[in-house]
Structures are given as C-alpha cells and as structure tokens.
C-alpha cells in the first residue's frame, strides 16, 4: 500500500478522525498545563537535551560502563548488531528458560525487530500485556500511536474481540459488554494475571539505561511493566543502544520531562528502576536479568546527517501537536515509528530509499520542535531527509526538471521577468475560460482551493512605472482588470 493510499483510508475513517481530533486537543491541553507547572521548564529542557547529547557523544564509553556495572550486579549483557541477531538472542535465552509462555510489556524496539514473529516461529506463545497492545494482538492489528496504541479502536471493537477470544462474562449480554469499559478492562486484568504468573520469561523495553549504576528504568501507568519484570523467572530487557543516560541524577532530569510531555502527568504511576536479578536475600524478583543492546542501524545513524534524531526519548509529544498526524493518524506512516520523529527515524534506520518519502508528510510548521522535551530540530532534519531521499531515489523527473528550470529562472532576472509576462499574458488569454485548473503535479492545488490570477501588471512593473513618474495611470489600470478579489 502506498503512502497516499494509507492517507486516503485514514481521511475516510470517521471514528479515527474523531479520535485524532480529540487526542489533538486533549493531549496538548494536558501537556501544556503539566509543562507549565514544571519550575524552569525551559532550563530543564535545555539540560535534558545536554544530557542526551553527552550520552550520544560518548555512547561507546557509556555502553561499556553500563555493561560493567550491570554485570557486576549479576545482569547479563548481550550485543545485537541487527534485528535478526536481536531476535535470535531473545529466542535463545527464552529457550534456555524452558518456558513456552512469554509475557511482554511495551517495547517499540521489539516491534522494530519483529520479535513476536520470530518467537512464535520458534514455538513460543507471546502475550502482549499493555492493554492497548493486548487488544491489538488479539485483533492482529498494529499500534497507531507511540503512547496510545489502540487510539483508532472503539469500545465496541474491543468488546467484539474480547467476546470472541475470552468469552462473554456470566450474566452479561454483548450489548452491555460493548459499552462497559471498566468490565472490559477487568476481563483483561484477569486474563493477563494468569499470564504474568505462568510466564517463565518476561520481555520488556527500556526507557533509559543509567551508565553509572547499570540500572534500567521503565515507566508505566498500568503496572504491567512491573509485573513483567518482577514475576517471571527470566527478565529480558530490549534496548536501542541510544537510550543511555550517564548518571542517576541525569535520569531524574529526563523523568521530569518525559511523562509531562507524553501524557501531561507529572510522573507516571510506576517508575521502576531495576539493577540486576534478585539478590540472594530478596524474597522475589527475577532470577535472571538479560539486557539486549540493539544497534539495527543506530550506530550508522549516529555518523549521519540525522544523528540528532537519536536524542528522542519517545514521549510522543510531536505526534500530539502535528497538524498532519492529526489528519492521517499513525497507520498512514506504515511504520513502527509514526509522526514527525517517525518520519526521521524510519528512513534513517529502515532505509532512505524505501521510507524517505515519509518526510513529505509535513508542512514544516515547527509545532513538533516547539514541544520536543529535548529540542530536536525536527523541521530542519525533515528537509535534510528530503534531500537524502532525493539522492537515494533520483527524485521524480517532473519535479527535478521543474525545480531546475525554476532555479535557472530565479538566477537570471530577465528570464524571471519574461516568465512573469508570459504567465500574465496566458492568464489574460484564458480569463473567460472559467475556473482555473492547474496542470500535472500542481493539480492538487486546484483540487482543494482556487488559484489566483496572475496580475496583469507585476509589482516590479508598477514600481518601474512609478520610478518613471507614471504611477497613477498604471495602478488605476491594474485595479480595473483584476477581478479576482483575494
């Protein structure tokens, strides 16, 4: 499916449109209040950015320090250069754990490496435990938002799926179930509680890894992150190598902006910082903790033009303010990472040729940069991505030619002025032929709005005339002929 097809589908999905509209307004209100209440939020954002820049600039050293610290606490660190290797590592650990059931909490990296597919092929049953992801899994669907993955579904959709897969609770009719969100949620709680208890392996993501202690920080509101990392005997944490911060104090600064930017909460309900498997004297906790460091294009990206996009802390604020995401939603991007940041990260990691087109899904309005907690200059990087995409694909001939000609004309004033006169003359000629429809690649303009008439006397012509002392005549004449009132 092409980008345009996915966009069309999104634009013609009324429930999605309502959900996106509601998300746009509510999430911004909440984020603005919460960030507004943070003392010295501008300074905190600068510091957050500086921390992330420092981490990236010395990423090799911090990863080594992380490994040393975590290993000293009994954790095992694995290095995976690409998606296949990462999945293979997880499969190997899970196999050694002798349990067929794997409980998963939210991890975008796991989606990026297609982990579930690999584990299922190897005979494991993988259950997503984040409520939104659980619902999507039951429906064979994919997330459409970083923080609210099932935003495109209605309660009736969920009820239909739960009735099918979990059975109707006693004494409840389908119609009742379709409107009872608390009941749906408690059905999920019961079903998943069994999974948490019986799973021998828990797979989680990592929000931040702290180099100076070897600790892994996971934030969640539902509590499934805590359950997945506390109950199963083996905990496997998947992490993109860029998600490092140097110190515990640095972690706290980033936590100050993460949930405020993501959901407008001052902090998530649960912030778990785990450091190695359970100690000998601890009553519970996993017996094994594995950290899988996933590269999958990040090291290369660090050396490229889009390196700044690696600062991202995956808060989703840019999605929430983007006027384009608001119209098309996450599925239209066709990627694990949607929205403004997705338009950078997806081509950078997944291939510029195939995914660079996503950078077209932007009017460069800059709302994203305004809310980014680490101040990533997304608009400038979108432009860079467009240039890289052109280099990777050669560009479309009609645009290449058009822009070439345009740039020649713009460097030779006589050519430009000639072009202006020709356009004005052409406009005058077809003045009686009815509404203007622009040709070829420009047709999109007139599909949705009128195009103005080229003025019969350009500004520079009027200026020149005025310089020659003929101001009154020229201006008056122009006013008579220009009928399109814009």
């Amino acid at each position, binding site marked *: 499916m092409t980008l345009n097809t996915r966009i069309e589908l999104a634009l013609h999905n009324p429930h999605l449109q309502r959900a996106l509209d509601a998300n746009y307004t509510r999430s911004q209100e909440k984020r603005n209040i919460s960030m507004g209440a943070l003392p010295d939020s501008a300074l905190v954002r600068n510091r957050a950015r500086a921390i992330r820049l420092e981490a990236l600039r010395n990423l090799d050293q911090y990863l080594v320090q992380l490994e040393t610290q975590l290993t000293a606490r009994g954790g095992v660190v694995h290095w995976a250069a690409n998606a296949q290797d990462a999945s293979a590592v997880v499969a190997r650990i899970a196999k050694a754990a002798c349990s067929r059931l794997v409980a998963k909490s939210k991890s975008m990296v796991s989606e990026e490496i297609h982990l579930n597919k690999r584990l299922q092929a190897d005979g494991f049953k993988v259950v997503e435990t984040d409520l939104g992801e659980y619902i999507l899994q039951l429906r064979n669907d994919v997330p459409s938002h970083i923080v609210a993955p099932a935003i495109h579904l209605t309660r009736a959709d969920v009820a239909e799926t739960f009735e099918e897969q979990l059975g109707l609770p006693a004494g409840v009719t389908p119609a009742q179930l379709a409107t009872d969100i608390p009941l749906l949620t408690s059905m999920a709680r019961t079903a998943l509680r069994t999974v948490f*208890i019986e799973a021998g392996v828990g797979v989680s993501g990592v929000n931040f890894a702290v180099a100076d202690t070897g600790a892994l920080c996971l934030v969640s509101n539902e509590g499934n992150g805590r359950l997945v990392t506390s109950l199963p005997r083996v905990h496997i944490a998947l992490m993109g190598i860029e998600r490092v911060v140097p110190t515990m104090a640095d972690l706290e600064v980033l936590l100050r902006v993460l949930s405020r930017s993501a959901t407008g909460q001052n902090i998530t309900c649960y912030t778990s910082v785990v450091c190695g498997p359970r100690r000998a004297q601890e009553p519970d906790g996993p017996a094994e903790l594995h950290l899988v460091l996933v590269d999958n294009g990040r090291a290369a990206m660090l050396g490229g033009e889009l390196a700044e996009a690696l600062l991202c802390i995956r808060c989703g604020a840019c999605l929430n303010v983007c006027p384009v995401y608001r119209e098309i939603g996450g599925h239209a991007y066709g990627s694990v990472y949607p929205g403004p940041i997705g338009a950078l990260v997806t081509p950078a990691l997944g291939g510029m040729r195939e995914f660079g087109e996503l950078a077209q899904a932007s009017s460069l309005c800059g709302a994203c940069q305004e809310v980014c907690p680490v101040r990533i200059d997304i608009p400038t990087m979108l432009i860079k991505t467009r240039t890289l995409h052109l280099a990777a694909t050669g560009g479309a001939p009609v645009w290449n030619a058009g822009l070439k000609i345009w740039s020649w004309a713009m460097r030779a004033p006589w050519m430009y002025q000639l072009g202006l006169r020709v356009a004005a003359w052409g406009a005058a000629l077809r003045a009686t032929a009815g509404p203007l429809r622009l040709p070829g690649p420009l047709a999109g303009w007139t599909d949705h709005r009128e195009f103005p008439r080229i003025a019969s006397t350009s500004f520079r012509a009027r200026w020149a005339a005025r310089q020659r002392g003929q101001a009154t005549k020229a201006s008056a004449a122009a006013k008579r002929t220009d009928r399109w009132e814009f």
Partner: protein
Amino acid sequence: MGVLAAQVAAREEMLARLRRSLQAGSTLPPFEAVTAPPEPPAADRQQMLYEFETQLNILQGRTVRTPRAKLTDCIDGLLRERGVHTLLAWDAAHLPAAQLLQDLQAREFSIVAAQVPSREPARTQHLQSLGTAEAGITGVDGVIAQLGGLVLCGGAGRPRHASLLAPLHIALFTPQQLWPTLAAWLAAQSNAALFADSSSVTVIAGPSRTSDIERVLTLGVHGPKELIAVCIED
C-alpha cells in the same frame, strides 16, 4: 562460531562502528553550555505533606493521616471496609510501625509468606497463593512532595509483590520521610547503597491506570486499583 565468541565479535563490531561514526565528525549539534535549573526553595514538613497529598490525589491516590496510637484501628477499618482477609506485607522490621502486623494477625488477618521459591512448580503455586491476597502493606523509603510519589526500595523483607499484586496497596510513612523532589531524595543516596542489597527502586505515584480504550480512564488494570498512603503522626 560458538555463542560466546559470536557475542564477543558482535560487541567489538558494534563498538567499532560507534567509534567510527563519532570520529567521522558526527553531525550531532555542538556542545551547548546550559544553566542548571535552580533548586526549589526549602519547604517545611506541613507544606510538603500538603503538596504530597494534593499531587497524589491527581492520579487518584489517597492519603489518610492517623496518630500512631490509632494506627491499628485505622488500618483495620480500611481493610474491613473492603472485605480484606488476606494480606501481603513487608517484614515488620521495615515498617514504621513494628507492632502493626502482629496486631493485625491478632485481629484475624492472615499474611501470605513473602518468599517466592525460584523453582517450579513451587514458584507458580506460590504466586497463585499470593494472588489471593486482597491487600498489600508496605513501608516506604521516601515520600516525594512535588510528584505525589512514594519511593520503595527492594531488599530482604521487602517483596515487590506487596505493592503490586493485590487490588489495594497501603503504604505507611512518617512526615520525617518527606522530601521536596525526587532529585533531593536521590542526591542523599549513594549509588553503591542503592543497589547493593536491592535489585529495584520503584516510584509509585498512584493506583494502576489506563486510557487505552477510547481514552476513557480506568483504574486497576494490572496493578492495584487503590493506593492509600497512611501518614503516621507522632
């Protein structure tokens, strides 16, 4: 190539790739000097307690204040209101009221043993029995006013499950444990001490919540449905 050798090779390759990228004059923006945000002004305990209560309420947590002499009655009341019979709990030594658990047991509440066996089938069986508890009682290692957050460290006698599995989590604290910010609490800990005897530090700021279905807020999806922070006033 054996698994270990492959691992070592992958590690070397990844580190080499990183170093190459960084040396090649990465396009990361240049160093920016930043002013550290100022520390918040000192607040007294009553102010901090009030701020903590306000913040905790925002995420649907509750605070209850009780004089030490009335603690057992207070907890007893909260538990009976909800038909609680079975409890998960931290060891008495780690609670700010050493006598409480004994008193509750005397009043017919039972406490499930905390220790989770490592091997199957004992492990699964024990987790299932933990699942029958209707409430968990813990202490805290810090109370963060600005966030409405409770810091719970792990360690001997401090099971994670006591604040996680049951529908009700009761956290006991004293005003002396209040800190203005998480940064302040962290600054007072040493990295070594944090994780020597404990594999986890958790900040809890409210009962479990989700809005994954149509952005409608629902509490108690996986973790506790209710969080009550009990302030013991001496």
